[in-house]
């Protein structure tokens, strides 16, 4: 088997082999050199790139959502807090078959279509190792069921989460507003960083207006996690900053008094402190349970609220626009005095009706229907207010004209938003020739001025506006922007004062006298309030005719007559000597002011009996 080599061949072969070895060595060194160059490029030239990438792999920033600020009333009664609630979340990465896992969970507890829909939306947006919430507010029972079945529910986690809670339900629903799950549009609008890990945001009311203050600052922790997203240790932690607490000027007791007094009627009450602009009560009935919204309201619940003929989601106190009726008269009186067209002493003859010169149309006084004649042969301002004489104000309105009326009523806050610190406020309408041309494309008719003089016609105001105007009256011209929040984290917020309304003391005294007579006078339109009263109250009654049916109203036959009844209005302030509270009240379809005025008594009683020195 071994061949016979001759020497020559052997040498040749040895030489071939030697040269091939050298070539092989060269090749090996060259290729190893190439590999080394590659490692040099990765480890030296591009070191920073890969070091950063490796850090990014290793370290993950986890948001630590802040606790939302609490909300208190002026006496420290808690109105909105955060309560632990248990959330069922799924870590997609740890679930083999998502559909199977979901159907298995559905066998254990109820998961609505909406929950599923929200879940799928979020799943597509989050990383595989992030827990995605599926069901909120687990009950004790559900938690127990999940715990028992944990062994076959891989990737299912139950976490405690702080949820907004409104302990007083309906009572404060319109005053506070509510938070709700962050919607798709809000995701776009909000600072994404700030809301990482936060599930809800203020939707309406104070919760929305003060969102920035209440939300706080998100915290972070740097965690080392492995490729599967499991957190191995916390490297660094920046704690979140809890949202600031709000102290409202609202008084739980007044709120309660107003709410109870309204009962099951539709209406609104706003009470405020005339000198500071602090809103003491803001009630709109019916209300709703704001807790329903916190985690996304169900369609059933929402439809019930939306479709109710009582429109409970409508905040009558600030969104409602009602003709002020006779409650406008004290302000008309001031307009008359300021314009110089009338004096405290000047009188108007009152046959029970009024007509424009050269026109046969009679504008009737409300008293005509009852007594068949006027209030008195001659009516002065005090009497006109106390007995709510229409003729006096028909005459004043005609002489004043609509544009000057608008000019003098404007400082009382009519026709513009008050600027209160909450959302969805409406500013009502203070009609003028310009307004009518702009809004309706029509000229102003002289007859319209007459009915405007008694707060009928185009003029509209919210209960808040009525309260604000009453406050300006009570403080003899002091004007503040009304506000619901008094202090943030215990630090008082500055009050925004507006240019005061300057008028001679005599003017104020005359109107005060008239308004005092409304309650305390023999023929006062609200004299029913006087028995048992321990202080002097100034007030003004009002009735607004319901011309059509309110917007969105769905009603049944039996309701029609009720819904055609007049709205009852009442404004008041007390004590007359040094007013500390002003109120504006409306009771929809109350039939007349007598539906509204007792509410003022209840609210003012609650205020003056509890804190005589406050305000």
């Amino acid at each position: 088997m071994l061949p016979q080599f001759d020497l020559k061949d052997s040498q040749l072969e040895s030489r071939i082999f030697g040269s091939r070895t050298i070539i092989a060595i060269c090749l090996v060194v060259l290729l190893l050199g190439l590999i080394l160059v590659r490692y040099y490029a990765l480890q030296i030239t591009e070191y920073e790139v890969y070091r950063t990438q490796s850090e990014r792999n290793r370290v993950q920033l986890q948001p630590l959502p802040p606790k939302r600020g609490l909300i208190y009333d002026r006496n420290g009664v808690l109105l909105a807090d955060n309560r632990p609630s248990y959330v069922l979340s799924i870590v997609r990465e740890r679930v083999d078959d998502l559909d199977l896992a979901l159907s298995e969970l559905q066998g254990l507890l109820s998961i609505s279509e909406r929950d599923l829909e929200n879940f799928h939306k979020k799943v597509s947006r989050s990383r595989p190792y992030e827990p995605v919430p599926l069901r909120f507010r687990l009950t004790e029972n559900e938690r127990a069921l999940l715990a028992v079945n944990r062994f076959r529910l891989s990737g299912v986690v139950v976490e405690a989460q702080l949820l907004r809670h409104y302990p007083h339900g309906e009572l404060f629903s319109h005053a506070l507003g509510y938070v709700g799950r962050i919607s798709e549009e809000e995701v776009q609008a909000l600072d994404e960083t700030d809301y990482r890990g936060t599930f809800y945001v203020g939707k309406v009311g104070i919760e929305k207006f003060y969102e920035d203050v209440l939300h706080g600052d998100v915290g972070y922790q740097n965690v080392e996690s492995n490729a599967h997203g499991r957190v191995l240790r916390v490297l660094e932690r920046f704690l979140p900053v809890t949202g600031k607490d709000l102290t409202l000027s609202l008084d739980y007791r007044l709120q309660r008094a107003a709410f109870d007094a309204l009962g099951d009627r539709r209406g609104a009450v706003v009470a405020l402190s005339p000198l500071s602009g602090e809103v003491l009560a803001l009630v709109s009935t019916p209300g709703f349970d704001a807790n329903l919204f916190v985690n996304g309201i169900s369609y059933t619940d929402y439809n019930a609220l939306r479709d109710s003929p009582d429109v409970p989601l409508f905040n009558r106190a600030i969104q409602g626009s009602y003709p002020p009726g006779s409650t406008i008269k004290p302000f008309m009186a001031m307009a008359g005095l300021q314009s110089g067209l009338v004096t405290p002493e000047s009188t108007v003859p009152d046959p029970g009706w009024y007509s424009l010169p050269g026109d046969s149309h009679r504008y009737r006084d409300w008293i005509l229907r009852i007594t068949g004649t006027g209030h008195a042969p001659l009516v002065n301002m005090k009497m006109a207010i106390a007995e709510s004489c229409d003729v006096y104000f028909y005459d004043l309105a005609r002489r004043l004209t609509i544009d000057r009326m608008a000019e003098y009523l404007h400082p009382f806050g009519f026709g513009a938003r008050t600027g209160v610190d909450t959302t969805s406020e409406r500013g009502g309408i203070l009609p003028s020739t310009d307004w009518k041309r702009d809004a309706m494309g029509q000229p102003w008719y002289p007859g319209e001025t007459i009915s405007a003089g008694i707060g009928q016609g185009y003029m509209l105001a919210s209960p808040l506006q009525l309260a604000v105007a009453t406050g300006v009256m009570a403080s003899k011209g002091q004007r503040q922007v009304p506000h619901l929040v008094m202090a943030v984290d215990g630090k008082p917020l500055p009050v925004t004062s507006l240019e005061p309304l300057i008028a001679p003391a005599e003017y104020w005294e005359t109107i005060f006298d008239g308004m005092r007579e409304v309650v305390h006078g023999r023929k006062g339109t609200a004299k029913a309030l006087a028995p048992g009263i321990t202080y002097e109250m100034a007030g003004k009654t009002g009735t607004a005719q319901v011309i059509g049916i309110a917007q969105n109203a769905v009603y049944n036959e039996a309701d029609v007559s009720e819904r055609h009844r007049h709205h009852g209005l009442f404004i008041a302030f007390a004590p007359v000597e040094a007013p500390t509270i002003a109120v504006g009240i409306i009771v929809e379809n109350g039939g007349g002011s007598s539906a509204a005025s007792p509410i003022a008594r209840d609210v003012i009683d609650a205020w003056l009996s509890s804190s005589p020195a406050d305000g």
Partner: protein
Amino acid sequence: MGDYVRQLPHQGSHDMARRPSVVSRVHIDIPLLLLLLLLTFYGLVVLYSASGQSMAAVTRQGTYFALGYVVMLLAAQISLQRYARLAPWLYVLGLTALVAVVFVGVGAKGAQRWLEIGGFRFQPSEILKLVVPLVVAWFLAGRTLPPGLFSIGGSLVLLGLPAMLIVIQPDLGTSLLIAASGLFVLFMAGLRWRIIMLALALAAASAWPAWMYGLKDYQKQRILTMFDPDSDKLGAGWNIIQSKTAIGSGGWQGKGWLQSTQSRLDFLPESHTDFIIAVLAEEHGLQGIILLMGIYLLILLRGFWIGVHAQTNFGRMVAGSLTLTFFVYIFVNMGMVAGLLPVVGVPLPLVSAGGTSLITLLAGFGILMAISTESRNGAV
């Protein structure tokens, strides 16, 4: 073992003057052994970290090494002449085993690579890694060199048969390695350059048809992924992105032993097997890579030295082929982990965890030692 009579013609070695030492009597190449032990130690240190500080993994690998070194020592005792005589019989046996794999083989992950005999599993393709260079060298050693067309043709048949049987398992990586080990024998035998050039040109020309019709989708995918790992970040590209990140983030100094975050946090797949070099690079930096390459280069140079000093063409060709095959392992593994070459299942020789390839490699070094000691000892 060892009491048979060496029969190779003595070619006037000056070693005759020396007294045969214990070392030479057990046919050990001391420099090669020391280098291998150094590499083994380094490898186990890296493995301890790469396996998540698992002493069990290190012990298991240590056991493989112990077994491997015993196999190496045994392989070193067999005379070259006997290797040459056994080569065709081993070859026939190996081919039979490969054919058996096709019909009765067992496998995993869609590949059929193992034979199971009496509860003991083995991979016939591993044995062929050694047998193919031996049989081609045996075939050529009896003919005039440089090889003529008949010699070349015969060699190609010898290396082609097992390569084809392995490619259908399918195991393209091993198949290519085995074909290469046979081609290296031809190269060392002095295959003429014009034939080499022609072959390279043919290979280049057939690249396109091979791409179109020969390669399976997952093989194409691996090649595409190499060029653009970002195209499939979480799939095939993941390994490459993560291994490059591991290597790059090591820098010059490395993050320190046991400090590899890429491996410890499971970002790096296969961190203790095929991708172990990435752990080494991450923890020990470019320094560690240079050290490892240094050891490898010294082993390769020693292999070539042994080849150059071999007494017979058979020994020369086998030594050259085994050394070059060892180099291919290093090159392919280091290249693929660094994203230079497509991902194929080639372990980092003597460092990656795993027993089979380790024992084959050490058996190969046993053959090298047989060649080495034969050349120095001559007829003992």
